[in-house]
């Protein structure tokens, strides 16, 4: 089930050229609503595969909302709707025959607050995605998945002796890395992270940043962050969102390589924001 391609659920065939090689995300004309309130307006964006893209912007400008619309988590909220297209490999995630559950298997997510499953051990947490989606996995395969995911998330050395301990017993930073392990254990193609370090100390933050630098070889990563240095350190490309005022929708102001965005952006608002003269 896990390896079933999203494209099987759609009418338009994938072009063979970029099948399974690159996972460029193309966003066109995206408007995101909470009921009647338009939270994000008219976003066009291209997200490069196998790289880290940072989303920055002031609080309430719709970064989380935008991020959640990329794996159809937005519609989990009551009355929340999306207009426009999000294409991955040319397949529109919001197409009529697309199953949002399949989309979420391909596009994993890490949340701001670490949220391991309290009823499960560390090992079970890592396996949760596979266990809950598949009928059964063999013991040795399971062990392999656990070790690989925990190694990939830099947690293996710290927990290898207590895999059966409850996931909730770890420190905040370890829990967050456990959540990352859980997300990558289902082998997604894209990993969305919403302020993954905001609850963490500098050392755990560093660990997760290094992790992102490793993971970007395998995954396409989109990260929301309030920390300019973090955006500068980990991302190749940066997108700046802004909001004109309360009640107005957030908009994508500009997007470029991270160096350009921080050194000489074309928009004054971006310049003000990255240099801390916002507001």
């Amino acid at each position: 089930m896990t390896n079933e391609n999203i494209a099987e659920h759609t009418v338009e065939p994938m072009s063979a050229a970029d099948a399974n090689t690159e996972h460029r995300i193309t966003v066109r004309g995206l408007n995101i609503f909470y009921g009647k309130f338009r939270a994000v307006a008219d976003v066009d964006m291209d997200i490069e595969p196998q790289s880290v893209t940072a989303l920055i912007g002031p609080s309430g400008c719709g970064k989380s909302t935008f991020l959640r619309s990329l794996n159809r988590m937005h519609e989990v909220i009551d009355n929340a709707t999306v207009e426009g297209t999000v294409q991955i490999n040319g397949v529109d995630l919001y197409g009529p025959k697309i199953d949002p559950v399949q989309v979420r298997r391909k596009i994993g997510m890490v949340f701001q607050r670490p949220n391991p499953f309290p009823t499960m051990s560390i090992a079970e947490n890592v396996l949760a995605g596979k266990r809950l989606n598949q009928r059964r996995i063999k013991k040795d395969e399971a062990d392999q998945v656990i070790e690989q995911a925990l190694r990939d998330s830099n947690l293996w050395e710290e927990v290898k002796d207590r895999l059966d301990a409850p996931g909730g017993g770890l420190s905040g930073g370890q829990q967050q890395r456990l959540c990352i392990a859980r997300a990558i254990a289902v082998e997604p193609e894209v990993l969305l992270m919403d302020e993954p370090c905001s609850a963490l100390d500098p050392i755990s933050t560093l660990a997760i940043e290094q992790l992102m630098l490793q993971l970007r070889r395998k995954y396409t990563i989109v990260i929301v962050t309030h920390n300019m240095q973090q955006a500068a350190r980990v991302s190749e490309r940066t997108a700046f969102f802004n909001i004109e005022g309360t009640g107005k929708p957030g908009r994508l102001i500009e997007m470029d390589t991270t160096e350009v965005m921080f050194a000489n952006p074309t928009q004054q608002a971006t310049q003000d924001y990255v240099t801390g003269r916002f507001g």
Partner: protein
Amino acid sequence: MSVSTVEIANAATTSPFDNRTLTASGRAMIVAASLVVGVALSAVLGGVAIVRVVAIAAVLHTAALYLASLRIEGRRRAIDRLMTSVVTGSFVLVLIPLVSVIWTSIDRGAARFDGAFFTETMRGVAGAGGGAKHAIIGTLIITGLAAVLSVPVGILVAVYLVEYGQRNRLSSMITTMVDVMTGIPSIVAGLFAYSLFVIFQGPGARSGIAGAVALSVLMTPVIVRATEEMLRLVSNDLREASFALGVPKWKTIVKVVLPTAVGGILTGITLAIARVIGETAPLLIASGLAQDTNLNPLSGRMTTLPVMSYYGYVAPGFPPEAGYDRGWAAALTLIIIVLVLFTAARVIAKVLQPKGFR
């Protein structure tokens, strides 16, 4: 009180932070004086009985401690002491009926709490002897059936209310109906079940299943409410974490939400069972009285412990003491069953509860 303030209070000092407080000997004196006056007063009021002495002494002690504290320690401490007395007093007051019920049941139930009580039935017993085997089995069958009927329904309704029916018309209707059901008098539930089974089995039909249906009418709303509360306590973060792994909604509910809430749900179910296991009125109507063991809930009368206890007093037979004793022993057995249930639920909830958090 004639005791001078100098004796019962610490000497005042010059520092503004030092407190003049009642000393231990001062406190002891107030207690002793209250008791003495209590004994004296109750003698005047009609004989020294321990309950009367304690009650009078408690009231006196509360007043005396407040006044002494007001004199010596000031207003704030005095009110603190007054409130402490009132709260402690209320607690003891509430405890009295509980302890009294348990004690009386043990005291009077002990006479027939013997081997025969658990191995014999009332078949052919007119006076002394006999047992409650049939009633214990009946209690377990009827309550068990009621639980089987109402636990799945209750949990499913709660799951619908919390996970699917977000504030829609149907869910607010269900919530109102559950509230109404909570208020149904148990005798009405009994009449409902009786008349329901009369439709199928003819007038005068009484059976275990009819009793179980009556009890499940009482149980279901309690289970719905308890489960709903527990499901709402499950953090939305966990649901989202599961969705984000590509887990479908129903599987998220079954594998993530329900296991997280299972401890509380179990406690709710136990409370609901405890609520109905002692019901008498609906079972008198729906299940009737039987003197012998009936293992078939679908037909024939079936007796439970509360019903047996009731008849032990209403129709004790001759000599009546034998009937009374059986009634008390049945009550004691019921209390023990409920206590065992509660302990079991506590243990299971502890085992299943999410680990490692705080």
